[in-house]
């Protein structure tokens, strides 16, 4: 991917062309190592997927990038702004939808979007974009319902709408497709494609390997907090001599042994 020319004809600085750069990031929960010396870069206009088994460090990585957790080791740059040095400016450059949006149970969907816009200092067009997205995600009928009364899937859709409508340089989605109906997954895929067309970078953590294979330009495979492999889906298939991304994932993370002997697990004892 070549450097983007700016309007004045000069080249955009290297750091600004990266939506995200993570260098040697490590994090412990007490004595448990959750993220181990992780480094990755996500160019602008790219959808990157974090895939890995439960406890592999995907959510922790996203929480570190968003500042929900504070790591002591390593650095995070968002569009060239170091999170630790200038958190306010760095946080103005991303939008985040968590895996389990909690709190705000007694606000309606519309009120929540207003609150989110206020806290994020969103531009004046945010309301119109959010309203369009509510329509696209079939959420208009829920606009005046309390968040606490919504199903988990509907609530996740609200959270995704709130984040995407910000149109920030970096979009972060945790468990992107979790609890979403098939229709919403298709819509989300299109929305992500749309967002990167406008220069956004996106990082999505997901357990859905098939969604990642279809949607992501770049895949980071994690296990035990470490980066096991990275590259485009095609590159990963070639590297691991795999028929599909699932097969490549099993080989990269060393999980092939899990399937050995699985037929006998439920067999009655002799």
């Amino acid at each position, binding site marked *: 991917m070549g450097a983007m020319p700016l309007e004045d004809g000069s080249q955009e600085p290297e750091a600004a062309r990266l939506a995200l750069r993570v260098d040697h990031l490590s994090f412990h929960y007490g004595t448990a190592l959750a993220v181990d010396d992780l480094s990755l870069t996500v160019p602008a206009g790219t959808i990157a997927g974090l895939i890995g088994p439960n406890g592999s460090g995907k959510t922790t990585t996203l*929480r570190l990038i*968003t*500042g*929900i957790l504070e790591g002591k080791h390593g650095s995070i740059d968002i569009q060239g702004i170091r999170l630790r040095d200038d*958190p*306010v*400016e760095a*946080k*103005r450059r991303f939008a*985040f939808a*968590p895996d389990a*949006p*909690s*709190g*705000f*149970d*007694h*606000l*309606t*969907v*519309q*009120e929540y979007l*207003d*609150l*989110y*816009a*206020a*806290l*994020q*200092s969103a531009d004046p067009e945010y309301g119109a974009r959010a309203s369009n997205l509510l329509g696209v995600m079939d959420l208009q009928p829920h*606009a*005046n*319902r*309390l968040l606490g*009364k919504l199903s988990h899937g509907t609530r996740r859709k609200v959270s995704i709408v709130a984040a995407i409508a910000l149109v920030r340089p970096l979009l972060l989605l945790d468990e992107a497709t979790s609890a979403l109906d098939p229709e919403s997954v298709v819509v989300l895929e299109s929305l992500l494609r749309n967002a990167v067309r406008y220069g956004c970078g996106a990082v999505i953590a997901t357990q859905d390997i098939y969604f990642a294979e279809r949607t992501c330009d770049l895949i980071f495979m994690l296990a035990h907090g470490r980066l096991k492999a990275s590259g485009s889906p095609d590159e990963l298939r070639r590297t691991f001599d795999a028929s599909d991304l699932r097969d490549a994932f099993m080989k990269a993370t060393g999980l092939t042994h899990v399937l050995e002997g699985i037929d006998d697990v439920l067999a009655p004892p002799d």
Partner: protein
Amino acid sequence: MTSWLLLTDVERRRVSRVAVRLARANPLLVPAAVAVVVGVMWLAIKAGAGAAILAVFLPSGLSAVLAMILLGGVLVGLGLAAAAPRFEGLDPQIRTVPIAPLPAYLGTTALPLTIAWLIFAIPVFDFGTSLFRTIQVPAPDAWAGLLMLTQLIACVTGAAIMEILRARPSRRALLGAIPLLLALGLPAVAAPLTSAPAWSWLAALLPHGLGKSSHAAVAPIVVPSIATSLLGVLAVGALAAAAWTATATLPGRAPAGSEHVRSRRIPRRLTLAMGTWLILTAVRDSRVRVVFLLSLVSGAGMITATALLAGRSAAALAPLAAILLVQFAAGAPLALSSDLAQGRWLWRSIPPTGRRVGLSWWIVIGTITAAISLVVVAPVFAVMPLDAYPFVLGALVMAAPIPAAVGRLLPFRHDALTRQLGLLALQLVFFLGALGIAELIAQRFALQAAPLVVLVGVLALTAAICSRAPWREA
């Protein structure tokens, strides 16, 4: 182990885990907790000796002491039952296990609450021992035990009233419960008609004869049979426990309410946006509404009792009633810290710094607490002597930011009874500590402005806590 004991054991394990984690995180908390326990016991003993003077030298003095203890018990019962996790607070998968309503209620609510109340009632026992020894009642320890049991029954009565409100949260049921609460004040209302002192029927259960000879400066001590009194108290206790169990385990109606509500405009500025969010939450969350309504009703009951207590004791008790009410009303804003902690993923990931978010929280919760306290306490001002106004208003301002700080240090959890008890205790210790320091400075340094100095200190300390405390899970 039976299912209800297993459920109680879950709560016990949760307490142990929290205690061990806290002790490991900061070993200084262990001696601090021991100091608090010893301090509370010492205060209870000193208060008992002080109350004896009131009991002996004021008409209806013992009745007043007893009435305050019982009313306090009812309020504690109301508050704890409102905050109790009950079976619905458990993990959804656990809730699918086949278990009857009675063991579910016993395991998650009745047994943990009773144990918690017994722990809270130990200072009442100390208080009673000190009181009865000072007024030289035979077998003071036995009478102190009876006082503790009576307070426990008052708690259970409060819990039963709360269960009625919780099981059928309709406006009609709420209105129906108000006479039940006001009935607690009926003896006081009837007192002037019969020339009998207020609460004499309650005082008659105890050995002191003040209830029957209200005009004596030093009343004769009449000691009825302790066995008879104990039987009476046990009978009332059995009735209260049966009412509590029945109201808690009978199937209730699903909470009413429309799925759709009118969306309100959220302002764009951080503090105003947060304030609007918290006010909407307070108005829409039935648990917060119930606490607020109960504060109002309890206030009316306290005023009735205080106004009808004779002469000087009414003036002395009014500020105390006001301060108790402020503490009770502060439970509603404190409960909002649960919502703040649940949304920490958002508060931590938005551009405004943690310090700005914390200070906005301090301003909003301080304002909400002050407003609620003022509404709840307002009727007490009617029966309070004018010279007590500055003290009560000062205490109100001092109490206002405390729920914000306590909730930021350790967020409220609707499903964790032990944390709720700890938070209420922490709030009270914070408040009493501030009052105690003001008193100490005033006495030691003869400083007239001591309350003002402490007030500024409390405001600065709570603001610092809110802006700097680490974020914790609800």
